[in-house]
């Protein structure tokens, strides 16, 4: 490699230890990869605790992070997601890259006071994100 470096100093700079890390960076998964993040709120913060009696706290969670280029089975992403990624990178940068969004939810039971003073217990679908995906 020393001889090659002497012969072709330009190429050598691309493979110097410093640039090696730059070179490999394109294959490493993004640091802030798409994943589920905790978020907890209490209805008293929204001043809704006068009519939402229970639960006192609610953790809807949320998804945030970059989607890696090679999605594959890791996120259960359809092939379309990789196609969209290629379009965005190679054909038209105005097409957005895939987004990190919830893929599964769990329900929430709520006890509230209705405007007429009656009380209702209700179970709502899809109120807590439990899994993320790239789409």
């Amino acid at each position, binding site marked *: 490699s020393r001889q090659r470096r002497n012969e072709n100093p330009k190429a050598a700079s691309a493979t110097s230890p410093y640039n090696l890390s730059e070179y490999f960076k394109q294959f490493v998964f993004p640091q802030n990869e*798409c994943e589920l993040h905790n978020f907890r709120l209490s209805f008293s913060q929204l001043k809704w605790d006068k009519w939402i009696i229970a639960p006192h706290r609610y953790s809807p969670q949320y998804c945030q992070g970059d989607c890696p280029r090679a999605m594959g089975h890791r996120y259960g992403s359809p092939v379309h997601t990789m196609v969209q990624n290629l379009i965005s990178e190679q054909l038209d940068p105005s097409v957005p890259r895939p987004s990190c969004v919830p893929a599964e939810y769990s329900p929430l039971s709520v006890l509230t006071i209705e405007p007429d*003073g009656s009380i209702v217990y209700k179970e*709502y679908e899809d109120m807590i994100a439990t899994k993320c995906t790239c789409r």
Partner: protein
Amino acid sequence: PHSRGPGGLEKAPGFLEAPEDVASELNPVLRLPKGARRGYALLPPLLKVLSERGARSWHSEVPRLQPDSRALRFMKRLYKMSATREGIPKAHKGLLYNTVRLFTPCSERRHRHRDLVKGDIHSVDLLFNVDRVTALEHLLKSVLLYSFDTSVPTSSSITFICHLSIKEHDFSSQVCPSISHSLAFSLHFGVRKRKWVEIDVTSFLQPLIAANRRNIHMAVNFTCLMGDAQRSTKLENPVNVTLVPPSLLLYLNDTSEQAYHGWNLLRNGRKSPVRARQRNSPLVDPAGDKGKGNSQGKRA
């Protein structure tokens, strides 16, 4: 939200349901086309809050009648039985309800007369307004909820034999009741002073709810005799039970999109959310379930 109007439109339930006028106040940009609002009862109020830049508590402007404290205590106990502390529905045993509505009578007229044979007869005319029940909420069970505060000493175990007769009553024209329904039940007071008694009136109420009746008038006659289960079988004189007018409890199955149909999951073999959440435990195979929890550890 749709209101149940003459066109038969259904009122979509929603714990953030806004009074009808809120939906009309929404910024036209935020207002969804009529068709799209079905099953999205949560949207109008949420959009209104978001369109006011920050979760200003618009609800504090909406006057809400305060519920009866006893009713509130009962519903909090029902919530604890039906959901975890985080609010995740438990897989119900028995009844497959995803909605329970409690109505306190909006008017009542009491009468009390002594019958030589039956003893004290408490009769009360009750009017329940069940306008909040939507056409998508199907009645599974309905009960009259009595809370008994007795001054009777709680040392001895006492048995009450009560007779209840209910008649659907039309206050306006005082016609004779079209449906009458009587049932006897026994109450057994053990240690606790307060006793909730649920008296099943499903067969009485089913036709009224199915006919979209908004106001339900009931004439309820209640006679209670007291006997001591151990000693005498003959019932002594009627006891002086303080009878608080009952609440009307409806166990419903809400078939709208945003309601949770847990029993569907059970039927399809998927776990109920309470157990499903344990699936997220660290023992789960990290590679297979991407997108859950912190990926640093998994990737490493």
